[in-house]
């Protein structure tokens, strides 16, 4: 009895292997399509080697100065507004100097004005991003063409390793379905589902159409955007002519967001 059961199991195993072999063989043997479809770049698209942002924080005095920028970003990217703190999602927000530059710069005896000035914080699109290193599925990746750290919401498994890896707290997780919390859905940008991570994408969808990021556009020139590796770019000029700081440079991630304080 024992041998016949073993025999039966062997046969079952072999049959299962035989049944599953053809699709695998097909997949391996299939000839590649004659002409791979190519993703082109629109003529008007903005390009760079590494996009970077310079924020002139001197021009932001109070919370009202930053709200339109945050609003512009969150609106076009369908970022939900959830009041319950645990489920909060944010791509760009403002915080105080001591939090923005915790571990970076001296936070004592500041002038009253600097201490309470709103500092915009967002994904730094690091040149050496730890979140990309951590992701087990390449759902978050650094785009080679322009250095933007992007997310594939459809590949993300929601392990949140990238959130632990990010030293800037730039990432949010959809702890529940975000859609009921989006006031007006922008049909030109995807909404997300529960269980995936999201963050600022430097408006790669706008750059492709030749437009600057939404926050930059809404900032009246207080935010500048350009190619870090183009000597003649506006951002390089600003970095050269102003004293700028970046968040946690000691960690070696090379953040691409510069602050003029």
């Amino acid at each position: 009895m024992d041998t016949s059961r073993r025999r039966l199991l062997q046969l079952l195993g072999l049959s299962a292997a035989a049944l599953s072999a053809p699709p695998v063989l097909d997949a391996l043997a299939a000839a590649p399509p004659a002409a791979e479809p190519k993703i082109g770049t629109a003529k008007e698209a903005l390009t760079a080697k590494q996009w970077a942002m310079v924020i002139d924080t001197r021009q932001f005095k109070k919370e009202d100065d930053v709200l339109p920028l945050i609003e512009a970003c969150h609106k076009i990217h369908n970022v939900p507004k959830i009041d319950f703190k645990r489920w909060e999602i944010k791509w760009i927000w403002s915080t105080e100097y001591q939090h923005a530059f915790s571990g970076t710069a001296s936070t004592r005896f500041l002038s009253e004005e600097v201490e309470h000035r709103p500092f915009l914080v967002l994904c730094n699109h690091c040149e050496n991003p730890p979140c990309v290193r951590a992701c087990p599925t390449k759902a978050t990746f650094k785009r080679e063409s322009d250095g933007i750290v992007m997310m594939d919401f459809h590949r993300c498994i929601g392990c949140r390793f990238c959130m632990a890896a990010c030293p800037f707290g730039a990432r949010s997780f959809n702890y529940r379905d975000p859609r009921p919390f989006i006031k007006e859905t922008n049909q030109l940008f995807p909404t997300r589902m529960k269980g995936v991570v999201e963050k600022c994408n430097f408006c790669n969808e706008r750059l492709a159409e030749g437009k600057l990021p939404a926050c930059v556009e809404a900032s009246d020139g207080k935010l500048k955007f350009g190619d870090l590796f183009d000597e003649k770019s506006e951002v390089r000029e600003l970095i050269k002519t102003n004293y700028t700081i970046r968040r946690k440079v000691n960690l070696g991630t090379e953040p691409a967001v510069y602050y003029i304080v």
Partner: protein
Amino acid sequence: MLELSIKGTKRYYGWLALLLGLAGVGFLVYLKQLDFGLGITGMNRDVSWGFYIANFTFLVGVAAGGVMVVLPYYLHDYKAYGKVTILGEFLAIASVVMCITFILVDLGQPMRVMNVLLYPTPNSVLFWDTVVLNGYLFLNLIIGWNVLEAERQGVHYQSWLKPLIYISIPWAVSIHTVTAFLYCGLPGRGFWLTAILAPRFLSSAFASGPALLILLCLVIRRVSNFDPGWKQIQSLAVTVAYAICINVFFLLCEVFVAFYSQIPEHMDHLKYLFVGLHGHGAYVPWMWTSMTLMVIGIILLVNPVTRKNELTLIAGCICVFFGCWIDKGMGMISGGFVPNPLHEINEYIPTLLEGLITIGVYALGFLVLTLLFKIAVSVKEEVGA
């Protein structure tokens, strides 16, 4: 051999039913989580891993702890452990099953989990953790099952198993090293950013794993005709005693480095855990409980008089087990995430629902453990070991 697991007394069936019931409750709550999202847990933007990952981390240790019987038996020919090696291997299997389940219930999109294999990413430690955990599961299944079957037939186990047995020893070390690397390679998380994290994980693993094994051996002595042996239990107790001492020593090394260097990014997490930070200190009583338990464990297990007394041995093992569970579970997770990278404090408290799911996963693990141990014990009774 499988049939041995379903032949038992009424009490045995009752225990299985209880575990199945708890696992069932956990499963129902998990369906709720699947429907709503991880929002039913206490996790948030700042503390993005919680009770699930805490228990996962701890149980990887219990799994790795099994090597403390495998290594002396196979590598040093310590014959006495012949009786308990299979128990160590089966405990490892049940623990890894729980680990993998905890990872699955922690995923936001569990149905996409195969993406880890579809898009293999060698630069991600999580990819390697998947590889080593599954590898360890299969190694122990193959080795444990075949060695036990050979014992039942009264023959020596197959020679091709030998290399697998040797591989399984460093493999046990690897599962916990890789798990530590999940944490200690992240910039900007001062609490985890320490080279001693993997050694510390291993030392607490070699304390908590064998401590649980001792308790399980004592249960087996009561409920079956198989005696794992007092000598074996005593040898294991010595292992636990050394390992828990080393674990506490490593922890004190951490405390010294943080507080002598006075670097806030390293100090603040420890302060948060042990004395509270800026008025937040949900974990202070837990951490001191953990320290107290580990110290009592050391006293009871290092002292030969209390180690050799069954009652105080049991107390010592329970202290070590739960002391490590707090320290390496919630202490490790909450301490790492609070304060957050912007030096803000958002505390994390698990919810009732995630507690129920956690109990469900433990019930599933103990169900696997019970069935496997039942097989092992029945075989041992049969051959009259």
